[in-house]
């Protein structure tokens, strides 16, 4: 009986030692292999970022926009109530709701910039210097806005207004950056379309280089249409390239996104007309 007790105690001790040893080794690995753990964590984090598609980020930005709208309504209501009743309760309520809307507004802008950054990366593949500058600009703004931890912590109207004003000072530069990003995305998409149409045009010219049995009048009409298509495509490319040149120097002086949007619109119209004409020409028997 005594032997059995001693054996039991011995086994328990052995198990305890083993457990202690395992826990000890686990802690040792946590400390000593920090680089391995950190490396894997970084890799996993990078994969998660990569796995976030434009669609996901767009949905996030829309969601953040909805939250901002609702926080904004609550802030307007609380502010009006305070203006009307001016009591301690309405003051606290106004402070709380305004802090909340400042956080929502910041989050909405961060999410929107993240979406824009991903879109820019996917569409343009950051192929040249101006695109790199804009991409890094977006990155800096996202990091800077994400670092505003004191936002929404104000306990008085003065502090809240100061924090809000500081944030709003960024908007002018931010709008410019957003405008440039949008134009770079649009311009690259347009350039892709132009290249594709150029390819189809070359193919058509090669296929029709040999003398055809068509009547002379028909051949002349085809040649005229082809010249028209070439002119429209050239005009479209020239308009788009002009915008590209302006995008490269956007931060060196006065810059108006709306006039370049109009120019890209014109380029798009010319391209569409050229594409339609070429499709008609190709589909002719």
């Amino acid at each position, binding site marked *: 009986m005594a032997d059995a007790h001693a054996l039991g105690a011995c086994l328990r001790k052995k198990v305890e030692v083993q457990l202690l040893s395992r826990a000890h080794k686990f802690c040792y690995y946590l400390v000593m292999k920090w680089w391995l753990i950190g490396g894997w964590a970084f890799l996993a984090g990078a994969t998660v970022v990569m*796995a976030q598609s434009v*669609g996901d980020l767009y949905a996030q930005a829309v969601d953040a926009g909805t939250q901002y709208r609702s926080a*904004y309504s609550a802030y307007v209501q609380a502010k009006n109530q305070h203006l009307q009743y001016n009591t301690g309760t309405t003051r606290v309520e106004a402070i709380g709701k305004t802090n909340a809307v400042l956080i929502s*507004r910041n989050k909405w802008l961060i999410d929107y910039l993240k979406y824009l950054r991903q879109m820019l990366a996917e569409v343009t593949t950051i192929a040249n210097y101006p695109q790199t500058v804009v991409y890094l600009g977006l990155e800096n703004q996202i990091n800077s806005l994400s670092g505003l931890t004191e936002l929404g912590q104000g306990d008085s*109207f*003065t502090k809240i207004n100061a924090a*809000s004003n500081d944030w709003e000072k960024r908007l002018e530069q931010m709008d410019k950056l957003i405008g440039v990003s949008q134009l770079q995305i649009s311009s690259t998409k347009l350039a892709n379309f132009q290249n*594709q149409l150029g390819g189809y045009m070359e193919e058509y010219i090669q296929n029709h280089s040999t003398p055809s049995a068509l009547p002379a009048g028909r051949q002349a009409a085809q040649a005229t249409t082809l010249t028209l298509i070439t002119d429209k495509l050239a005009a479209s490319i020239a308009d788009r390239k002009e915008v590209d040149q302006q995008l490269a120097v956007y931060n060196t002086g006065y810059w108006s996104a709306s006039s370049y949007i109009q120019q890209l619109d014109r380029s798009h119209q010319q391209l569409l007309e050229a594409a339609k004409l070429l*499709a008609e020409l190709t*589909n002719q028997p």
Partner: protein
Amino acid sequence: MNGRRLNLVWLILPSVVFFLLVATFIIKLSRRPAISTQAPVGSPTPLDNPAATPETDNGLTSLVRQIAGWQVNDLRLAAPPFDRKISLPSE
């Protein structure tokens, strides 16, 4: 022995997580709706309607459709148009 087991845990577990994430990413990409040049199922084909002139649905026709369907100021790029200025009255 324990050390080896721990080594294996640190190597295998994160690898599994990593490959799962990569697989998710690939599945996501493959499920993206591609722009189809085919007529939708059930739509009248030239055989259903012999009077209709069959248009050659080649790459160029698809390109024309893509250009026509695209806009410079794409709505997906537009920021929500609402007031961004926030302030409280002075106390």
